[in-house]
């Protein structure tokens, strides 16, 4: 009998947390480590020997997996994501993306970024916005080719009918879909998403979660998601890392014992609720410790 088929009461008992279920491998096709973070620390820029934003963080994210980072505001989730993207250098420790340094990985377009704000250029159509980063990053790619690839990705995210629309003519959800298409047009191996649905309403958020699952199933990309939503983290992820603040660190890592494909039915699975409760408990604990530390 594996952990997933045990009675919920047995698995939810104190002392036998679901963290122990790390041995339950998710059903997705995940591979060897794509992102390796070893004992890194990041300090505030410009402050020598200043307090660390994040400290002692080690992670290994498998190729083709979806991993979420959750934690209280200010715990350094976004900073960690930016470090993986090669935008913030760690002051200590080592990181590699597919065996190379994060900055080199970014320049080789192994990484695609999606932020909370869709950040579309208001003077460009959805198609030109989706093609924009590819054109900037690789001068050898012709405008025609970039637009063809952008068009395919806009179709993938359900914006096939809105190619010529300006951002002002798109809804919030459509704008965020276009920003995901822009990231996909780079054809990265890793998608880094920093609270991508934070500015959307509840229904659109849920639709976007299914879109991410759909993209993952079709492309098998490694996805790292920063979110404040426990539901979102459980629904989407193979593994959830809970972060604490002051300094930012990983307080626990929980493997989600739900099989893929996941959909709206996944919410009804008792293990979904169980994982959600466990994550909530860990978040409250880490939040309490952070308050005491301050």
């Amino acid at each position, binding site marked *: 009998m594996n952990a997933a088929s045990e009675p919920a009461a047995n698995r939810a008992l104190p002392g036998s947390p679901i963290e122990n279920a790390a041995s339950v491998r998710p059903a997705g096709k995940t591979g060897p480590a794509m992102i390796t973070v070893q004992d890194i620390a990041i300090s505030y820029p410009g402050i020598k020997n200043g307090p660390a934003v994040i400290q002692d963080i080690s992670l290994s994210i498998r190729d083709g997996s979806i991993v979420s980072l959750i934690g209280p505001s200010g715990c350094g989730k976004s900073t960690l994501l*930016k470090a993986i*993207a*090669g*935008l913030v250098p760690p002051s200590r420790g080592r990181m590699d993306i597919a065996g190379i340094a994060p900055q080199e990985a*970014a*320049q080789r*377009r192994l*990484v695609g*970024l999606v*932020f*909370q*704000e869709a*950040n579309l*250029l*208001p*003077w460009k159509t959805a198609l030109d916005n989706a093609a*924009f*980063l590819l054109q*900037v*990053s690789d001068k050898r790619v012709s405008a025609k080719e970039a637009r063809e690839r952008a068009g395919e990705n806009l179709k993938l995210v359900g914006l096939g009918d809105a190619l010529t629309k*300006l951002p*002002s003519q798109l809804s919030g959800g459509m704008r965020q879909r276009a920003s995901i298409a822009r990231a996909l047009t*780079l054809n990265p191996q890793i998608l880094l998403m*920093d609270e991508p649905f934070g500015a959307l309403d509840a229904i659109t958020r849920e639709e976007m979660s299914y879109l991410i699952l759909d993209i993952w199933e079709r492309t098998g990309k490694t996805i790292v998601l920063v979110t404040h939503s426990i539901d979102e983290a459980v629904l989407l992820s193979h593994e959830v890392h809970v972060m604490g603040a002051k300094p930012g660190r990983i307080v626990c890592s929980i493997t989600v014992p739900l099989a893929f494909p996941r959909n709206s039915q996944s919410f009804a699975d008792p293990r979904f609720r169980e994982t959600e409760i466990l994550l909530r408990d860990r978040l409250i604990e880490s939040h309490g410790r952070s308050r005491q530390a301050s």
Partner: protein
Amino acid sequence: MTDKSNKGSDLFVALTGMLPGLVLFLVVLVLWELIIQVFNVSIFVLPAPSNIAVSLMANAAALATATLITAKEVLVGFAFAAVVGIALALLIVRFRLFGRALYPLIVLFQTVPKVALAPIFILWFGYDLAPKIVLIMVIAFFPITLDMLVGLQSVEQSFVSLMKSVGAKENDIMLRVRIPHAMPHLMAGMKVAITFSVIGAIVGEFAGASAGLGYMIQFASTQLDTALVFAALVVVSLVGVVFYYAIEILERILIPWAPKFDAVNRA
């Protein structure tokens, strides 16, 4: 058909929008005329609108010549102000250290009353076009620099991160993102600057000129021809309005995607 009817309805909406302003303007003119007639106010003190209209027609040729001269000063001075204002903003944003050194000096210079500089510019550059252009430039460049700076710097930091994440250089970010993003701000600064330019031209002509609307106002006031002073003021205002709306039309052509500020409907 639909396009035509849309354009027609746009024109109707625009004309309807102007109607309250026109009605109020006419009411003020009628009241003004009545007060002058009823209280028998001397034409030397305050001419009636009818006196101003008569003066406008009687001096039409002279006013037209003066208008061309002042309009040329405004346009050339504004063009220089735009070039200097945009260049300063680009330099401040692109070269941070230089910007940190330069910006406080620009603000300091802005606090100098420019009208006081007019006689100095006359002394330096003579009575021709040059002193007026320099005066207009120093009066009008600041709103352009300031608004352009706001536009260049208000690009979302996360978008800059996005560009950097794919290896974009500062010049790429400047040319492909910051400058287009700053265009609506630049246009707002230019609208303020063009009205300042008209003021600069008149002040420059007051300080020393032999032609132009400012010179005409000064000459008419020495002759106690108050009606002509007001007639010239009407033309100066019209020049300002024409230039202002010329920039607004330019804005609609160059950046149709930018949100339009509708002061009347927002109020």
